[in-house]
């Protein structure tokens, strides 16, 4: 008779043991710290809107709180949130927990079971870890989509990620079926405050163009790493291509005309210098879509490339 409770407890442990093991996973975050995170987190707080919150939303997790931006004379918002996912603070249950630094008390008040933060966020990681398991993403040294993949691993949503990757692969195949990307040169440029800014791979737009296999000018391929490099107006011809992509920030009220004016500020009459501009082969893309590390952005960008590059006649560089 005295063995009955013991046997019952043993049976419970044998049945529940594997389930308990699956309820959490041990991971090593960007600071080299081992943390135990729930396998299926229910109350996630994200402390970077564009890198983490938007990815979470696309992976099907609505965080209980998020970092956001606080533009002058405007309500706090999730940068790119509404444009890419439809979610923002004003139309969802996502609580705004501050900007830089996030308010650790506001985070604590949400009683999260998982906190995702970055090396960019200045809220103290030690304080965050005292609230809930906290995974730190070193976004300043990580590729955007590497961050995305890690978000999926940490939140147990890799199945969802696989579907998104499969969709993106099919979209690249679509471009490949329409043109031979290796025969077409492209570049992405941006002007700001009288300077020409160029990256080796400009966000999601650069990813689509490189993954599809388009050729880039040697001056862009020569940019090491993915740091922004600044050039003078004299360098414009180095970035000429069959198609040039120019970005403009919708959320700052910018338009394609403003982007053209900014390029003109760097070198008046730039359009006459550039083959792509002379032949109407400039493609203007909202910066929020071009730079957002999401699969919805990749969808939009593959469609833009399909219609503006693959789906038209053009004058090739040098003709």
């Amino acid at each position, binding site marked *: 008779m005295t063995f009955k409770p013991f046997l019952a407890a043993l049976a419970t442990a044998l049945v529940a043991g594997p389930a308990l093991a699956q309820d959490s996973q041990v991971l090593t975050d960007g600071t080299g710290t081992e943390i135990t995170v729930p396998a299926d987190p229910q109350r996630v707080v994200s402390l970077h809107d564009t890198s983490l919150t938007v990815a979470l939303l696309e992976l099907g997790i609505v965080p209980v709180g998020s970092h956001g931006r606080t533009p002058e004379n405007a309500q706090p918002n999730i940068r790119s949130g509404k444009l890419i996912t439809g979610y923002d603070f004003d139309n969802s249950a996502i609580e705004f927990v501050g900007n830089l630094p996030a*308010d650790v008390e506001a985070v604590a008040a949400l009683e999260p079971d998982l906190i995702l933060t970055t090396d960019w966020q*200045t*809220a103290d990681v030690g304080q965050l870890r005292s609230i809930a398991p906290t995974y730190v993403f070193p976004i300043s040294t990580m590729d955007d989509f590497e961050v995305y993949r890690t978000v999926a691993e940490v939140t147990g949503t890799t199945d969802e990620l696989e579907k998104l990757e499969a969709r993106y692969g099919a979209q690249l195949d679509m471009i490949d079926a329409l043109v031979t990307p290796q025969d077409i040169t492209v570049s992405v440029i941006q002007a700001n405050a009288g300077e020409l800014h160029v990256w080796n791979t400009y966000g999601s737009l650069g990813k689509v163009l490189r993954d599809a296999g388009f050729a880039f000018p040697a001056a862009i391929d020569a940019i090491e790493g993915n740091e922004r490099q600044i050039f003078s107006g004299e360098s414009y011809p180095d970035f000429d291509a069959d198609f040039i992509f120019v970005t403009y920030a919708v959320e700052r009220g910018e338009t394609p005309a403003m982007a053209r004016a900014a390029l003109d500020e760097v070198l008046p009459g730039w359009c006459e210098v550039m083959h792509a501009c002379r032949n109407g082969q400039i493609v203007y893309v909202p910066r929020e879509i071009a730079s957002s590390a999401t699969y919805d952005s990749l969808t939009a960008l593959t469609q833009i490339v399909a219609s503006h590059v693959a789906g038209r006649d053009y004058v090739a560089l040098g003709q």
Partner: protein
Amino acid sequence: MNTLARSERHWVLRSRTERIALRLPARGIIAIGLLVALQLAILSLSLTLGSYEIDLPTLMATLSGTTVSAAIDNVIWQFRLPRALVAALVGAMMALSGAAMQNVTRNGLADPSLIGISQGAALAVVAAIVVFPQIEHGLRPVIAFGGALGVAALVQALSYQKRGNSTIRFILLGIGVSAFISSITSAMLTYGDIDRAISALSWLAGSVNAATWSDVHVLTLWCLALAPVILALSRVMSVMRMGEGTAIGLGAPVKWARYGLIAVGVGFAAAATALVGPLGFVGLIAPHAARRIARSGVGVHAILTALCGAVLVSVADLVGRAAFAPIQLPAGLITSIIGVPVFIYLLQRAAAKSHL
């Protein structure tokens, strides 16, 4: 038994054997009492206000050692209390640094940023964030401290003359080196990666948000080490107010006092800046405010200065933390917003008095 004798303006405190006697300015002592009371009131308010709503009975229960919930314990003991204490300590240290610098340079506009301490710390941390992002967050205080001390040593070395130290030379070199360092910092912020630059700017604004008990311990140790030095130097400082030549004539060890005051000023500012970033105006305003509150000797003035700095940064941090929560305004921004009008008012009041 100690005895206390009162005159109209001073209280004289004598030991039983009358071997030690202190003549304390009545107004100064009253002002110290009021500022201590004000500081305690701000501390109480800091424990009460915040994004995590905690009612007064719960707060009292938590402070008396009863755990209402682990989350509330965490908010009170790990977030609010160390933060409030760090704000007070940092304010006092920046204020005393300013007082030391103003005394040694005999220039009322001297503060830690004048001789490049803040700029040195800023350059070191911005370089770490923008150029070497792989460096861990936790090393920032050490890096900032190294930068602050390095620049202070550079200015001191450049201003050294065999014929004796010139205050004007020291100040001008400090301004020049500060400007040079600031331009390098600006270049890094302009041409560095935008996300890293934003992170660096946040640190540059000066914030107490990440304060921990470890910071409280470190700052307390610095205060315990440096505050007695400044009090010990108060006699020499009072003579130095009359000018270097007069002080030397009266037999004061001016040279060593100068080195001592610079070391104390740099130590206070470097330790504080290393932990919370540059906090503008505290070192400039607090000594002036203390002087306006009560005319006193150097020792009492140092205590008043420390209290004024503590109150100023504590108020700044409380407002920055709670007024627009969850948006966190850095204490450095608030000290500047509060500091500039107060400083202008103090200057105008002084000017008006001199006309009378």
